[in-house]
């Protein structure tokens, strides 16, 4: 009798698995994982013969499994219970912090990227334009005390020191971030720094330029949301993870913003429509765009070559310039030098977080 129930239970489980797969519609994109999902593969003799079809089917089943996030949660909780201090490339650090794991950095790409930035720095120096490089250390370094004991963690400062040795004009923000590391500098569930973290980096940059730093109270602080769970959360779907608060800082909110040369023009750097979705950090400068131009009341034209760390950083500098340009090398296909010339750029800042800088293959193109 007992085995009869178990037999039926098992058959029902199999049937439920099949049925739920058949009945739920396939999705194209996973918002929480920020990637396109595998679709039912095309059948061809060649793909069957090579075994590719089999692999594709397996990926399709895994990606389209009903309530995929819930299953990831089960795995994460099981790993936590089994004493693991990491899951899916994320450390479970103190105070609920979920911190990206970086055990090593790709040396070849780092060297290539540094070389490219140096080339650009030298090329525009002849025209009297100063380039500064800011490599932002991430939570793994600034909050290393919160990491699990003995956790392997690559030293990001080595990359920054290497850049300095290559005669790059480096703005080192490690010390100022370390000084304030008891404050809310990094999101607990996302790999970005907070607006406050970005402010301290901005202050270090202003100081390096020998200019006067406004206290943070000079900006109006507005809470954009208090239910943010970002990229590191998405990797683990850990139900006991905290929620983060996203703050905006502005002197005046109205700024003309032009994305991708007139593709989309708006009057605020904050795209509040993202605040209702799961990718709230994208509210800063409309996620990642190839080019962005913000008008301000200041003088001079700043160009930031950047990753998404610059998106909340730029809140603080847009009022200092007549125009602030931002280029995301992952999407920009033109020549940076030509862009500088054509737009009359007077100052350049290269701003990346260290792990991104060491792995982004688009940066090498900036020398062109």
């Amino acid at each position, binding site marked *: 009798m007992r085995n009869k129930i178990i037999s039926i*239970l098992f058959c029902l489980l199999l049937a439920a698995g*099949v049925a739920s797969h058949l009945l739920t519609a396939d999705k194209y994109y996973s918002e929480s994982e920020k990637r396109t999902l595998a679709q039912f593969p095309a059948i061809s003799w060649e793909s069957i013969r090579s075994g590719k079809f089999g692999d594709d089917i397996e990926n399709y*089943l895994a990606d389209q499994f009903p309530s995929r996030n819930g299953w990831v949660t089960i795995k994460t909780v099981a790993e936590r219970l089994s004493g693991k201090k990491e899951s899916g490339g994320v450390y479970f650090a103190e105070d609920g912090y979920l911190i990206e794991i970086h055990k090593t950095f790709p040396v070849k790409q780092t060297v290539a990227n540094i070389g490219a930035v140096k080339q650009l720095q030298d090329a525009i120096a002849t025209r009297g334009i100063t380039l500064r490089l800011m490599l932002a250390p991430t939570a793994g370094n600034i909050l290393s005390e919160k990491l*699990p004991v003995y956790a392997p963690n690559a030293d990001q400062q080595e990359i920054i020191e290497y850049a300095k040795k290559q005669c790059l004009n480096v703005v080192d923000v490690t010390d100022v971030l370390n000084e304030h590391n008891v404050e809310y500098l990094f999101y607990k569930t996302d790999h970005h720094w907070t607006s406050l973290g970005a402010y301290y980096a901005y202050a270090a940059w202003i100081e390096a330029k020998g200019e006067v730093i406004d206290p943070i109270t000079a900006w109006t602080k507005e809470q954009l949301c208090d239910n943010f769970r970002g990229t590191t959360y998405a990797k683990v779907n850990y139900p006991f993870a905290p929620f983060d608060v996203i703050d905006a800082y502005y002197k005046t909110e109205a700024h003309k913003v032009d994305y991708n040369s007139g593709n989309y023009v708006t009057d605020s750097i904050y795209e509040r429509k993202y605040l209702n979705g799961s990718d709230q950090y994208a509210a800063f400068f409309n996620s990642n765009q190839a080019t962005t131009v913000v008008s301000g009341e200041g003088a001079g034209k700043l160009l930031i070559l950047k990753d998404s760390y610059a998106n909340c950083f730029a809140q603080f500098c847009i009022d200092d310039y007549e125009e602030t340009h931002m280029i995301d090398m992952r999407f920009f296909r033109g020549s940076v030098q030509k862009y500088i010339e054509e737009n009359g750029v007077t100052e350049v800042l290269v701003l990346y977080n260290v792990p991104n800088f060491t792995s982004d293959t688009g940066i090498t193109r900036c020398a062109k």
Partner: protein
Amino acid sequence: MVFSSLTFLLLFLPAVLLVYFAVPRQGKNAVLFIFSLIFYAWGEPIYVVLMLFSTVLDYTCGRLVEKYRGTSKQKIGLILSICTNLGLLFFFKYTDFFIGTVNGIFGTAIPQLNLPLPIGISFYTFQTMSYTIDVYRGDAKMQRNIISFGAYVSLFPQLIAGPIVRYQDIAEQLDERTHSFDKFGDGVKRFVTGLGKKVLLANNIGLLWSTISETSAAELTAIGAWLGIIAFGFQIYFDFSGYSDMAIGLGKMFGFEFLENFNYPYISKSVTEFWRRWHMSLGTWFRDYVYIPLGGNRKGLTLQIRNIAVVWLLTGFWHGASWNFVLWGVFYGLLLVCEKLFLLKWLKKAPSFVGHIYAMLTVLLGWVLFAFDDFGQGFAFLKVMFGGGAGFVNSDAMYQLLSYLPLIAVCMIASTPLMKKLYEKMTVKCGEGVLLTADTVRVLGLSALSVAYLISGSYNPFLYFRF
């Protein structure tokens, strides 16, 4: 296809169960045969031809043996079968190895074939050979139905990772087997347990081994190396015995009773005992078809030692076409001879923990030989284990130790019959309700967790591609 995949669990298994139980008894072997071919073809469709060839050939050889029984030609079928099967195995698995070795010794440049190894070829050639030998010896009757014979050769539950089912053990079940909820339920429990062993224990502890084996010997510490080889030992045990559990469980669902393949090898107190508990179907195969035909232990000590040597050279070689597997086999052959000559007597007198520590140390050293194809790497790893690396311990090793200690403890408990005994005690003492709850929790819990790990795209290697 492998069992620990969503393709198997969500597509193949429901389909084969549905069709198998829908057709009448006469059609069931045909269903198994066809589905087994699909199962096999999933990764490399070409090699299905090889399997069909093997099926037809051995079927014919069986008939030849029967036809010429008692005449001077009675050995034709037997010899043809053994030569073809060993020929296939040799051609696909060992040709490149020998070309490499010849090139290495004579400095020649004979090109290698670079053929992918047909999955499970070491298992099914051994099974088909056992058929002809069993028929020749009169241990089993000739199979008249080629579909039933095909079902035996290709039977998907044990096709790619064993157990190696001797024809004589399954001959009657092929033609006449019963299906019942009792058997099916037992099969479900066994299958789910195997799935959990593979996905939850082997894959996870395997991550530790893969991290450590990728660390260069110069950066590895003694603690790290020991931790690594212990992890490897658990990985291969839970992976392999998990596959066998899944095979035995699936067999039961389809009405078959396969023999056990593992019997808690890590509780052994000598190497002799270890090999009575580890991959038992391979040991039985070599005993029945090599060791005993060579004379076994009946022709004096010298010949017995020769026979042990032959069996262990072959056992090592069976595990992969590489010298490290040969060395691994020789290592065990030597230990077994020593135990036979004097060591077992000594161990019997010593307290039992001595035997246990001795057995586990030798098994772990054996795994080092097994794990590294490259002698240089293997010996560098051994050196690190005994203090020749980056010291005793470093923070990486501490992190790994702290992270994996609970899992290692679970693996240790799961390597002993403790849970099994507990369950047996429960069956005696508890009521049906409690037992049903326990079974339900076991089936639901293990399958849900396994599926969660499979979906989250964790590390899920197939270890037997060299066998």
